[in-house]
Every structure is written in C-alpha cells, then in structure tokens.
C-alpha cells in the first residue's frame, strides 16, 4: 500500500488557500484592503504636499491663521469614511454569515471530534472508529465538521490554509466547518498560548482523494492501540505527541499515533467530567500535579452537551 500522504503540494497559510473558506478569506482581505485605501491614500498623498506647500521656510500657499472650517470639506471628511465604512460593513456582514464556522458546507459532513490537550490534538473519527493524534486527514471535496473541546485550558485550533481558527474550551464544544477543495498538505496549530510546549503544538493536515482517505483510515483501523479511558489519561499528560509515545510503550514507532476507537463515547466523557465532580490538581490535565491514575473519566452524560449555539 502506498502512503496516500506523500507527494502532496504544501500550503503554508491562507495565502495559498487549500480550502473554500480560506480562498474566500483571502479574497475578502484584498477587498477590505482596497476599500480602506480609499480613505487612507488621501492622507498619504496630501501630507507631503501640504508639508511642502506650507513649510515656513519657503511657503507657497497663503497664510490663513484664522481659517477653521469649511462646509464642503467637512462633508467630505465625514462623508468619505462613512461611505467606505458602509461598503465594508455590508461586505463584512455578508461574509461573516457566509463563512460562519457553524454553517455546514455540504450535505452530511464528515464528523470529526477534536480534543485539545497539552500539547497535542486528538482527532476522533466516530464513523470510522478511529482516532489520530496530531494528524487530520480529510477527503478532498467533502464537507467536514469538527466538534471541539479541550481537557485543559482554552486552546484555539487553526488550519490556516483551509479555514482559520476556532477556540476550544473545557466543558464546552465549538464547531468548525470546512471543505478542502484541493489535495495538499498543510500544518495546523494551536494559536492560543497554553504554556511551555505551546509552540510545538502543531499537527499535519492532509487533504487526499477518496481512495487515499479510505486507505489511511484502514491503516489506522489495523492499529493495535485503542483509545480508551486509560490510554486517554496517558495522552492527557503534558507533552507533545512524540513525548507521549514512551508512556504508551510505542517509542520506536514512526509517524503519528493512530488508534482504534476503544470507547466511542470518549469525547462525551471528557465533556462530562466537568459537570460531575470538582476537579483536583491530580485529576485536571494541564495541572503540574496531574496523575493519570487519579484522573478517572465519568460515564457519558445523557443530558445534551453544552454547545455554543445560541
């Protein structure tokens, strides 16, 4: 089996968009910049000219020390910014609704649950029964919906080349919808500062063909490692995913950690833990005293999860 993730074009950020949202964002950036320039350019152009014309050493314009208002000028000064802001405002509103991260970008989007930990991300594919750590693989052309939470402090998951970012918060879920329109490889990251390993909290993102996606999932399904409350507690220790390999006893394995989904409710159980007990320094991932053995996950709650939808 060939690895579906080799030989992909690499995109660094939304300047080389790989997703529909990122492409729209780049276009919007250009429009906003151009519109704002309408108000900015007059300043840049007139300033040197005025300075030159009215320099005290050799002025060429008339001295009018008492001149202090002019209705036409006043209307222009208020009018131009108002018009520019109105234009941008309309544009901004349309784009905000169009690119709302909660809006699904196609029928039946691929569901991925994301748990942010110090300093790694777990991507759970409930339909495939698979979990990947610090690797997100999506099929090109299929809408994807991430549902995010964290089990430590607040984080922000960002995939610049495809969609942008959204906060992930403990005890809460947020959503990020996107659609990769090109095959390619990029890097995602956490952009919300979370401590010492923060800068290493990056993950690989692959947008691949349908076949490539299936192959990748099949490979993960054959893993001998399962994501259960116990392995989860180990992953929740502070450290990068590479550093987590040792306690998981897979030091010598190359590539990202891949697991079958031992407990399909793990995401809900992580959310539930903040509804049930008071956290202690030993049970709270991210605390310096965290102890995987003393951090039991409660059963998933039947009550609906607390989302951010209003």
């Amino acid at each position, binding site marked *: 089996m060939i690895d579906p993730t080799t030989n992909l074009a690499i995109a660094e950020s939304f300047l080389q968009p790989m997703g529909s949202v990122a492409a729209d964002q780049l276009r919007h950036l250009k429009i906003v910049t151009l519109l704002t320039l309408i108000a*900015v350019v007059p*300043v840049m152009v007139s300033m040197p000219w005025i*300075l030159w014309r009215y320099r005290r050493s050799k002025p060429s314009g008339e001295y009018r020390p008492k*001149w202090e208002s002019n209705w036409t000028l006043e209307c222009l*000064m208020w009018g131009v910014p108002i018009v520019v802001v109105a234009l941008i405002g309309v544009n901004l509103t349309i*784009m905000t609704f169009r690119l709302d991260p909660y*809006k699904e970008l196609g029928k039946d989007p691929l569901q991925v649950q994301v748990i942010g930990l110090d300093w790694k991300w777990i991507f759970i594919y409930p339909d495939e029964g698979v979990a990947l750590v610090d690797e997100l693989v999506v099929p090109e052309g299929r809408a994807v919906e991430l549902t995010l939470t964290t089990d430590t402090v607040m984080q922000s998951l960002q995939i*610049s080349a495809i969609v942008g970012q959204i906060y992930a918060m403990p005890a809460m879920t947020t959503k990020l919808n996107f659609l990769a329109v090109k095959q390619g490889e990029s890097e995602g990251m956490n952009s919300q500062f979370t401590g*010492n390993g923060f800068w290493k909290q990056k993950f690989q993102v692959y947008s691949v063909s349908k076949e490539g996606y299936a192959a990748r999932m099949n490979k993960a399904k054959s893993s001998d490692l399962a994501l259960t409350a116990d392995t989860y507690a180990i992953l929740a220790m502070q450290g990068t995913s590479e550093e987590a390999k040792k306690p998981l006893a897979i030091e010598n394995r190359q590539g990202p950690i891949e697991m079958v989904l031992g407990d399909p409710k793990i995401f809900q159980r992580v959310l539930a833990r903040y509804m049930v007990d008071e956290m202690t320094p030993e049970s709270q991932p991210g605390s310096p005293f965290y102890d995987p053995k003393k951090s039991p996950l409660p059963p998933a709650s039947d009550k609906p999860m607390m989302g951010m939808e209003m």
Partner: protein
Amino acid sequence: MLDAIFGRLTWDSIILVQAVEEPNINTLITASAAAMMPVGGVMIVALLTWMKWWKPLFEWLTSVDHKKIGTMYIIFAVIMLFRGVVEGMLMRANQAVGLNGGFLSSDHFNQLFTTHGTNMIFFVAMPFLFGLINIVVPLQIGARDVAFPRLNQISLGLTAAGGFLFMISLMVGEFSTGGWTGYPSFTGRLVNPGVGPDYYILAIAISGIGSTLTGVNFSVTIYKLRTAGMSFMRMPLFTWTALCTSILLIFAMPPLTACCAMLGLDRFLGFHFFTNDMGGNLMNFINLFWMFGHPEVYILVLPAFGVMSEIASTYSGKRLYGYTSIVAATMCIAVLSFTVWLHHFFTMGQSATVNAAFGVATMLIAIPTGVKIYDWLATLWGGRIRFTAPMIYLCGFFVLFTIGGLSGVILASPTLDYQLHNSQFLVAHFHNVIIPGVLFGILAGIHIWFPKIYGFRLMEGLSRITAFLWAIGFILAFMPLYQTGLMGMTRRTVAYEDPALVPWMIVSGVGSLILGLAFLSILVTILVSVLNRKKLMVPFGDPWDGRTLEWWTPAPTPEWNFAVLPKVECRDAFADAKEKGTAYQPIEKYDDIEMPSNTYYGFIIMIMASGLGFGLVWHMWWLAILSLLGAITTAITYAFLPQKHNVIPAAEVREIDEAWRRAAREGRGITRDDEGNQANQGLACPDNIK
C-alpha cells in the same frame, strides 16, 4: 512557626539564589536584572545622602502639587519603559535566532511577554499619560490645582504600589506566564498554583484602583475648576481628550477590578467563577477583561490625539481646523469604545449575528478616527509649518498610525480575524497603533511641556534624532510582523519551525536594536539638556508661541500656576491676547493664595497597599491583614484631620508676577526663526503680528 511568618516564601523563591544553585543563561539574565534593583537602590541611597537630597526627596514625595505629581508619574514611567524596551529587545533577539528554539527557555520567554505587555500598558503608557494630564490639564483650564489634591497623591501611591509588586516579582518568585490578558483557566489555581498569577492580579488591581480614582479626580477637575469664561467649547483639545479619558477610566476600570477580584477569589478561596468545573466559565473573564480592555486602548490613545491636535495648530501657527468636528469625533470614539469589546474574541464560537454586529460596530469607530486625521491635515493647510521635533512625531503619526488603522479595519472583519487572531499580524497591529499613536504623542508632549515645568527647553536637534530613531526602529521592528502573521506565525511563540520566517525575524531584531537606541536617545536628550540648561532657559514661559492658557505663565511655573486666574473670552485665549497686545498687561489687584500643604497620606497608602499585595501573594496573612487595617485606619484618620493650607501672601505673589509682566512688556519677542536657538527666552512674537 516560620510558615506563619513567611507563608510560601522560601530561600529558593529568591532569584539570586536560583542563579547560584542552577546557573544558566536564563537564570543569569533574570538574576542580573534582579541584581540591578538592590544595586541601584544602594546607589540611589548613597547619592541622596551624599548630595543631602533626602529632604527635597520627601518634599516631593509628600507634595500635592499637580506638577510634581505629574513629574513623578513620568519618572516612574521612564524607568518602567526601560524595563519594557529591554524585554522587547530580548524577545526579538530570541526570535531572530528562534528557528527550532532560541536561547531563552520557554518559561523565561513566557514571563517576558507577560511582563512586557503588563508593564507597557499599566506601568508605562498609563502613568506617562497620567503624568501629562496632571501637568497640563490644570494649567490649560486656568486652575491652581486638581479638584482633590490628596486623592491625586493616593492615585500615584497606588500606581507605585502596583509597580512595586510588579518589580519585586523580578527578585522574589516569578511573574505570571499567562500574557497581559491573563486568561483563566491557564491562570487558575489548578493549572498555575504558583505566585505568578497572584502577582499579576494584585499588581493590576491595585494600580487599577489608582487609575479609577484618577478618572474621578480629573472629571471633577475639568467639570468644576475651569476658570471664568472657559466654557466646554472653549477648552483646549488636550483637555477635551483628558476629559474623555477620565470618563472612560471611571467606567472601564471597574470591570478589570471585578474580574481580578473574582479570579483572586477563585485562586485564594476556591471559588468557581472561571474554573473549568462546577459551573465556572472562563468566557466570563474574557468578556469582563475586554470590557475594560477595549476602552483601555482609547484611554491610552485619546490623550495622545489631544497632543497631536495641539501640535498641529501650534507648530503651524494657526487655529485648529474643525474644532467642533474633533470634539464630536472624540466623544463618538469614547462612547463607541464601550460597544466593541467582542472583537477581541470573534473566534470564541458565538453566532454570526453577534460577530457581524460587533464587527460593524468596530468599523464605526474608524469613521471619527479618520475624521480626526483629516482635521489635523486640514489644520496644517494654510499654516506656516515648522519642522520641529513634535512636528516630526506628528508626520510619523500621520503615515504610520494610518497604516495601523488599515490593519485595524482588516482585523475588525470577523472573517479575517478567524485567520489573523492570535497571529503576529495582531502583534504588528497593536504596536502599530500604540507606538506611533500613544508613544509618539507622549514623547512629543514631553518635548512640548517640559520647558513649562522645568524652565528650560530640551535640545531640539537631539529630540529630532530621537523622533527619527523611534520611527525607523518601529518600521523595521514591526512591519515585518505583518508579513509573518499572514504567513501563519502565531504570537507568544518562543520558537518556530518554518525557515521562511528567519529573514523577517532578523530584520525585526535589528529594528528592536534601533528602538533600544531610541530609548537611550531620550535619556541622552534629557541629560545633555540639563547640562546645557543655562542656554535653554525660557523664563517668559512661551517658547513655542503657544495658544492656550498654560503658556500664559512664567517658566518654571510657580507653585500657584496663575497669580490671578485668567478670564477667557474665546478659544486659544492666549493667542488672542498676544494678538491684541494685552497678554502682559499689569494687574491691579492680587489676593492671598491658599495652596494645600504637603501630606504623607499617599505615601502611607502606598506602603500599606504594597504590604497588602506582597502579603497576599506569599500567603503571609499577618502582613496582609496588618496592611489592610493600616490603610483603613490611615484613611479614617486623615478624613478627620483638618486639611492644612499654605497661604502665600498677596505681596509676594505681586512681586513675582509684576516682575515677569514688566520684563515681558519691555522684552523683544523672537520670531519663529529663532525658536530653536538661544535667543528663545520664551517670549514670542507671533507670525501674524509682524
């Protein structure tokens, strides 16, 4: 027993001890910074003793004179700016070599950006502005002091106490690593049990209370103490912006105090306001913080706008264009600034409707801001522009601040914020508005009003060099960050993995070196000017052909400011009087002047507040309780003590004032050609009179 006395404090908390036990580059850097404080302290004590300056020092510390209090704010801010600039340079140096890891440890870098940000906002920018406001506002409205002189001293004391806690964290313990925004649950008890976040909370809460009081004080001062005839629409623009800032302070500081107090309750008493569990919610902190945080940026920038207005009209020898427009725009900004806080967390997952509403609200602020810039440009139109140091700051401001506004409009779009939030683009943006906006305003303001208070000008040439260094340094240090931000580099990152970022980071590092020079250049300017002060004297008090009341006093301004409170009949009253030739007419009747006398009130409150903060941070409960009780007792005692006054007899005032007026009538004013040389004794012959 020892625990009861020292709480959490142990030998290992002391940074110097850490450096001995575990010497490496990080502990050495912190230890040498920490060592500067005792060494500096000993040197200062020695100097004071040797020069026999203890008595004058205490005369200053107990003074309620707004000019002295203002000066103390500014000295405090300059010292803190030194620390802030050094920290900025360290971070930039680290990132210049930060591909896959710089020379600083992650923990050290994290403390650096936290202290740098906290310091620059709370202990540099705000004290600088309070200093300027203190010095200038009473003079501009024709008053002898502020409404509550003792309260003013207490505000300074609380700011200093916050600064003390902030500085002592360099020697004992550590500061927070949670950024200047200090979001829980990262700063919560479970994740960060150490003293860092406690220092952070207490330092900003204590100084924050001082700021609230400053807001109260100056609102009342401006409402109540304006001299006869000074209606609102005749107030100088700087006073207008000071008024808006004061009102903003009153409304914006309480959310900060509240969220600090709540986080404190979480940390000290196990409450659950912002915890992950038990129904706590960190989003509430973020909301409260930015309900303060956004108005705060206008608290900072509005007075700077005020300075820009004064520069535009004074240094082009002309009335301000569109006074009414600018006042209206300032008020618009002040009100709107409370309606946009959510743009600091567009990415928190709220609905598109909420985001769009706040995005549009944010855009709206761009309108009055744009209007002000156009108004200043129009002010220059038809003037006689002199390229003095303040004018250089103003020009730098025009170009650079406008670019900052452009990036602000970009960030105000929720769609784009999903990409640029938390990135280096953001870092570039806020430095882009803070340095060319706030800092340029402050530095220009110091240059302008320095001679008013101390009697001599700053060296013009050196001041110009300083201005250019700030502008060039800023461009090199921060423009590259727009690019790296677009390339996807986050803020607060000790290192990065993308080699394409290296060249940008190196340019930025070079820029920060120039900013370091720019800071030195401020000190050199002041030092050289002090040494040459004989040649720079401006005893008549009007070195720039000023237009507003503050220039209508000798320099240095006497303790009582105005021998007889001036009457005002129009805007730019002093310019008008000069034009009519009535500026220095003799005055018939002088009265005794009552000035509030010195008091230890603020000084004692400062000590108590420092003790309270330090005691709480280290869990030395006895210290905290004693200090709190002490502060309360002090306040009650002083409330019952009759306030003392110094009376300056009319005869003494007459003698000084008449001499000044006579000399001014007999003297020959200089034209603006001689503004920068020794002929400038502070007596102006305006361009429009010749």
